[in-house]
């Protein structure tokens, strides 16, 4: 019989039992902590694979220089989504446009507050296919900061973007979508 499969002597049993119990409880606590450690790990994984780096879409890219690639045309589609119906209006002014990589474009989204009170909204962007995210640069976007709306107010909100000319050639159609969240409770709590 090998070392590992030996059981403790009867007179030591109680001590050995509580020792092993504590060890296993420690493992369980470690596993609980690991569940929370998955949160930063997930961010790192998204960063490394470049797949989920949607967070970069919520920051302006510094030092964008126009290098227009006039030989290529890429279709950019715009989608506006609301998590629930009825309390907001939110839409792009046009549904798609053809763009040259390397050229700076501006597009407008329109939002109207129908909640019946002053509200704060936060737009969360997403680019599909995921691979294109890393090549989608913004210099200005209404999603960078929470947007304040008076009761019934309508706003036209611009987004300025440029596609990195290094965009892989097989990507000829990119979708930029926004989900428009009412963030009043959360922001209210922060203030």
């Amino acid at each position: 019989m090998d070392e590992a499969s030996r059981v403790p002597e009867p007179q030591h049993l109680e001590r050995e039992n509580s020792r092993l119990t504590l060890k296993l409880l420690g493992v369980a606590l470690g596993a609980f902590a690991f569940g929370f450690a998955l949160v930063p790990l997930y961010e790192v994984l998204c960063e490394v694979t470049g797949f989920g780096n949607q967070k970069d879409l919520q920051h302006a890219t510094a030092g964008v220089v126009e290098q227009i690639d006039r030989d290529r045309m890429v279709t950019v589609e715009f989608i506006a989504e609301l998590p629930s119906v009825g309390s907001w209006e939110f839409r792009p002014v046009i549904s798609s446009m053809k763009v040259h990589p390397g050229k700076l474009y501006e597009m407008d989204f329109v939002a109207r507050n129908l909640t019946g009170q002053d509200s704060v909204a936060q737009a969360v962007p997403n680019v599909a296919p995921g691979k294109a995210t890393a090549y989608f640069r913004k210099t200005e976007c209404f999603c960078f900061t929470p947007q304040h709306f008076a009761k019934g107010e309508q706003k036209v909100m611009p987004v300025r973007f440029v596609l990195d000319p290094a965009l892989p050639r097989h990507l000829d159609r990119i979708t930029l979508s926004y989900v428009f969240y009412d963030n009043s409770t959360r922001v209210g709590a922060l203030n």
Partner: protein
Amino acid sequence: MANTTHADHAHDHHDHTPKGIKRWLYATNHKDIGTMYLVFACAMFFMGGAMALVIRLELFQPGLQFVDPGFFNSMTTMHALLMIFGAVMPAWTGLANWMVPMQIGAPDMALPRLNNFSFWLLPFAFTMLLLTLFVPGGSPAGGWTLYPPLSLQAGDSFPLTIFAIHLMGISSILGAINVVVTIMNMRAPGMGLLNMPLFCWTWLITAYLLIAVMPVLAGAVTMLLTDHFFGTSFFSAAGGGDPVMFQHIFWFFGHPEVYILILPAFGVVSEIIPTFSRKPLFGYESMVYASASIAFLSFIVWAHHMFTVGMPLAGQLFFMLSTMLIAVPTGVKVFNWCATMWKGSISFETPMLFSLAFLFLFTIGGFSGLMLAIVPADFQYHDTYFVVAHFHYVLVPGAVFAIMAGVYYWLPKWCGRMYNEKLGKLHFWLSTIGVNVLFFPQHFLGLAGMPRRIPDYSTQFADWNMVSSIGAFIFGFSQLLFVYVVWNAVKSGAPAPQRPWDTARGLDWELPTPAPYHSWETPPDAQAVARGVGH
């Protein structure tokens, strides 16, 4: 010899046992606690089963007949929570409580008071969960997977559900710790780890899985709780979180969880098939290593549950291939069971019938699992009835049949009385026919595109849904027969012989029949250990 002395000891101790309700409230005896676990599991099995019948009743015909869609969704969610956490997991813990000390030659579980605590958490947990049926907004209806943002929109049921899951989690972690400590520290002299019956082995591995992943689930639901009440944004996109991350964390728990449900079944079947084939188990060590490999692989396949939420191609390939890899150790097991029966002189008593049905039907569930592992095919099958058919094949004629096989197999040793073999076989055939009529058509429905978790469907799915519902009612009501057979055996069965199955090996069969209240007060002698480990 040893047996008679044990019987005397047992009588001594019986006299000190508290009577009536106190025997159960203060229970520290592994058999009493095991019995309570099994009775509790049976109650939850019927409650979850009743919910399943509400689902099948509504789906009997297209259109909305009996319940409103919100309640229907509550039924699917609650059915899953009750069956997984209330029926199958406690049933396994109950069997472990009964059998592990008997099989390793220990007097009791290592931590009897903890054992009592982990059982008594369960009635409270499930009372809380079932209370949600009566609160404003109804029971959780977003699926047992509790995906945000939908699960965060639940009504008053939300905190009750989360705390119920916390209690269930603590209960199963403590139960698992108890099993590990018992097996590691309390084996009889001469019983090495690789001499243990396979039920102990598969439970040991299951216990480690439980300790590793139940806390992760607890973490995930805690994050849901703080997102809902305390303004954190783990999963809320508006606040910078990511709902997809919940799916990753959940399935990091969820995939090992499905092996928690099935590994002890492998153990039970590995005990029963050799007994009724009258041959030792083929490839004992490879069974142990296969179980351990399955447990290891279960940690690196989780994202196959979420191919359609989007991930890089490399990720899809990794999770597809690692998932398919699980078929290798599982195949080792299936071939070993077949090889055990090869040229055996097989007899078909009820436990063997359930084990054989397990072997065939679990393998069908394994094959549909392989199909689901193929990424491009999964895009088609995802969230359809094909998935429902798959996991019910591995869980009902898989885990549940193995539990029933185990109960029929060990019942004579537990209570000293035989069950009625004719009724047992009738229960088997009704269950097996019922379960196939119930779940096999769901493969066709899924391949034809019927989505899961819907109360109404396109008329093209009507025929197979009707067949499936008929099967559900046959299966559901034939389980009442199971309760009758067990009850009848306990109350008035014919006295069981010392060895109810003459070829059964293991220390559990060396004890007198019925098994004495305290199992091995004096450790079994070397001869008994050697007789038991003849594989």
